[in-house]
């Protein structure tokens, strides 16, 4: 199979899955108790807002039902739902009173920024420790690093995040273990939020900073604030670098909480994968040629050992978005995870549908990219 055939095949396979996810979200939204028409009008459901042509009164509740077209058969509703999805109209949130697309557009970059940064830290760390662990198999370092790898996978992520806050964050009175190590006073990382509380965007700020809306990734956006706008900010955020630093410091603890489990599992995968490769004949050949051990491991063995690791990337992105639900709750980030929790708590089913859909789209696309990468670096896959 040629590469482009492979890609097309994978893309076509996405379609039934996407339709399935749409059916799934639709079904969940219709099972969830709670009448959206009643939620929207709250305690004013009985008010008469209009009259029919025959002079019959229409209450606010009935008007909502008519407006949301809830009296249609379920299949008609589903048909309309799919059409609206395709047209980009994902409905309006009952809780935020904004279009779901806007809610998701605001929330998604926050989660993605955090997840990507977490994986960006976890991958090199996990792979490096995995290599060292495999090379020093059954020595002390191996045992210790494996124990910690399993231990980090076993930690409840929300608890670990709170422990990080307790020991490393500011505002905890004791300053944790941060003060003696880094010589700071009262902790070294901000305790929650995306920005320092003393720093607020001016009125209608974000749009003003980034007339085109920005990317939503503050790590990127902070470099594109023009100088004249920077001068309007407080002294400590007066340059692009300071803005970037502030964002980065706020991301440090959430990313550590999110990335540590990924790093742990990566270490184990990398170790197992490398140990398998190290037994191959060509590695023995490389050694027999008299190459240095590190060259054998890094250049010869790691190339093949890294191939299976690529497949895990897709799942770690999914896992990171799932873990973001907990991390964002602890660190008060208004990302997709928090939006999902809030919308489920308040039964805002339009947003639940939107968030579920968008997370699955992100997951499927990242898996698609991973699969294509895999097919490029390992041509054997395409033959199947």
């Amino acid at each position, binding site marked *: 199979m040629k590469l482009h055939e492979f890609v097309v095949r994978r893309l076509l396979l996405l379609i039934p899955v996407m339709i*399935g996810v749409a059916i*799934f979200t639709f079904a969940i939204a219709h099972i969830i108790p709670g009448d959206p028409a009643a939620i929207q009008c709250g305690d004013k459901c009985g008010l008469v807002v209009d009259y029919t042509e025959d002079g019959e009164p229409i209450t606010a509740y009935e008007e909502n039902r008519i407006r949301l077209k809830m009296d249609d058969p379920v299949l008609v509703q589903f048909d309309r739902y799919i059409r609206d999805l395709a047209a980009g109209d994902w409905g309006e949130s009952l809780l935020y009173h904004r279009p779901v697309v806007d809610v998701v557009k605001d929330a998604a970059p926050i989660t993605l920024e955090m997840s990507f940064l977490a994986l960006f830290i976890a991958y090199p760390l996990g792979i490096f420790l995995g290599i060292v662990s495999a090379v020093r198999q059954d020595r002390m370092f191996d045992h210790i690093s494996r124990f910690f790898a399993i231990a980090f996978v076993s930690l*409840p992520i929300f608890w670990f995040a709170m422990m990080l806050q307790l020991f490393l964050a500011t505002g905890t009175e004791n300053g944790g273990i941060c003060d003696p190590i880094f010589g700071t006073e009262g902790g070294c990382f901000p305790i929650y939020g995306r920005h320092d509380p003393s720093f607020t965007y001016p009125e209608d700020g974000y749009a003003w900073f980034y007339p085109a809306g920005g990317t939503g990734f503050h790590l990127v956006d902070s470099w594109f604030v023009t100088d004249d706008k920077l001068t309007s900010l407080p002294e400590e955020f007066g340059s692009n670098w300071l803005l970037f630093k502030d964002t980065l410091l706020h991301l440090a603890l959430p990313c550590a909480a999110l990335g540590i489990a990924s790093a742990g599992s990566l270490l184990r995968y990398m170790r197992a994968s490398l140990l398998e490769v190290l037994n191959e004949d060509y590695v023995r050949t490389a050694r027999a040629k008299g190459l240095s051990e590190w060259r054998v491991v890094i250049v010869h063995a790691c190339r093949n050992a890294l191939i299976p690791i690529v497949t895990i990337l897709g799942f770690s992105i999914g896992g990171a978005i799932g873990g973001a639900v907990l991390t964002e709750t602890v660190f008060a980030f208004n990302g997709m995870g928090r939006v999902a929790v809030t919308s489920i*708590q308040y039964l805002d089913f339009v947003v639940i549908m939107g968030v579920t859909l968008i997370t699955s789209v992100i997951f499927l696309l990242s898996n698609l990219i991973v699969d294509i990468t895999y097919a490029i670096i390992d041509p054997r896959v395409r033959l199947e």
Partner: protein
Amino acid sequence: MRDWDEGKEDRDESLRRLREALSQSRSDLSRSWAIYRRSLLAMLGLFMVISVSLVAIFAEYIAVEHPYRNLLDTEDKWSIDYEPRRAEPFSEECDWHEQKITTNPNSPLFSEIVVAESDDKVGDDSRFYRDTLSVIQIIKLEDFQGYDLNSSLISINSSNSSLLVLSPELYGNTSLYSGVWVTYEFDNEAMHHWWLPDGYDVCIFGTNDQGHDMFSKVVYGAKVSLKIGITVATLTVIIGTIVGSISGYFGGRVDEVIMRICDIFFAVPGLILAMAFVAAMNQITSLTIPIWLGILFPIFVLAAFSNTYLSSTVSDDDQVSEQVMSLLMRYRGVLLALFSFFFFMGWMPGASWPDFFEISESRGWRAFAALGILAVLGAIIIADRRFFLNTSFEGGLDRIKDSFDWTNPWRYLTFRTLAVFVSLALLFSFSGNEGEEIVLIKDFDRLWKVQAALIFTGWPGYARLIRGQVLYVKEMTFVEAARSVGARPGRIMFRHILPNAWAPLLVAFTLDIGGTILSASGLSFLGLGADAYTAEWGLMISESRRYFLLSPHLMLYPGLAIAVTVLGFNLLGDGIRDVVDPKNRR
């Protein structure tokens, strides 16, 4: 007698072989143990799992108080009181109690002598608990705004240590008419538990803001978490194995459909899906199914099995009833073992499982059982093809009777049986009994919902795992050999493929217990898990979040408990992986 002597050598030989086989199987187990024992981490994991299980089993004896103490009506065995506010571990504040005293003489509640009693209550006033306390010393006295007063204004009655005597300055002072707060140390005999050393009659993990002993809650939490972990992992394994082996063995379109469904499940993050699922089940208070569904479902399952038999053996039409053999009859031992396992589980972690067995008391269940018996009889009568072939009625009843195969009634479960059952069941469901429902779980509380959600989100992982294993084993020569001698799919599946595919399943099962405990605590942390005040570790962390900078110990111990339990299962799973890894078995 001569025959007996002649066969002696053969008998000895077969006995010797049997012994050899037995000794080999024993050595196999001991070899596994030897491999397992090599790893220190695996032994550590085993130790952790065993200790947590022991703590869960003997929670009543280890814990100082019942975690639902305040939520239940007064029962003597839980009549212990703490100071109802957060106390540090090992602090003497654990024995302190704060009590409001009316100091306005004009109030009808006023009295010069006040009984020292706990004012411990949670929730609505109908669940209210109060106990008289024996006071040792007065710690401090505060006015209503929190300013310290001279604590000698209140003294302990010399003859009865549970009575506090107010001095006239206290109730003569109009500025104190809004009342005072007295904090005193009380004699907490009940806190001194059998396993505590002398002098340590304190709460070793501190108390939470409700005045509950954290140690007791953490101990009881082991029960809840293990129950969730084991139940969910077992049920997901069963569902996943069934679906995955069907998918892997039959392949083709069935495989394609099942795998696409699994893809859908994988595409949505599990936690979000579980959250939505719990929310969707919010208003369900008891899990019931309509009777007609209860009848149809097992029939559909059985029909699905007999259906596969028919399709695979359809070539020889007359042999059909010969070849339709009973999976259930064959594996009744396995079923019995599974049932006993669940029964044991129901007995051990308490709480919800006993509800499952109350189905026998519902009328619906009895009707269901009666109908099941009728259905099997009907199947035997109607579905036997020889009955239809021999309907000449020569020879009368005897002939019909001879045509039955009484030894294996399951073989009559075929398409036609299904058709008969469907009509029977529909007839029954429309005959004025709509109100009757089979109650599966009477009290479908939040813990049940969490378990249901985790099973719902968890099975695709196993399905995919088992499918991969089946695909791999299916191509092996011994499976081909079995197929070539005419073994049926069910036999190949259960006798040849699954026994060779169980190793990764066992590893995944062990690891999944830990993973489930993590997810369940995560759900509880988000407020979508266990009901308020349940001794669930995730919920305990969530409840103490408000105070976590002031009293980190409230979240420290439940979190450590989760970490230790999950770590134990993960290490155990890793150890088992080393054991079942063929590379280690040389």
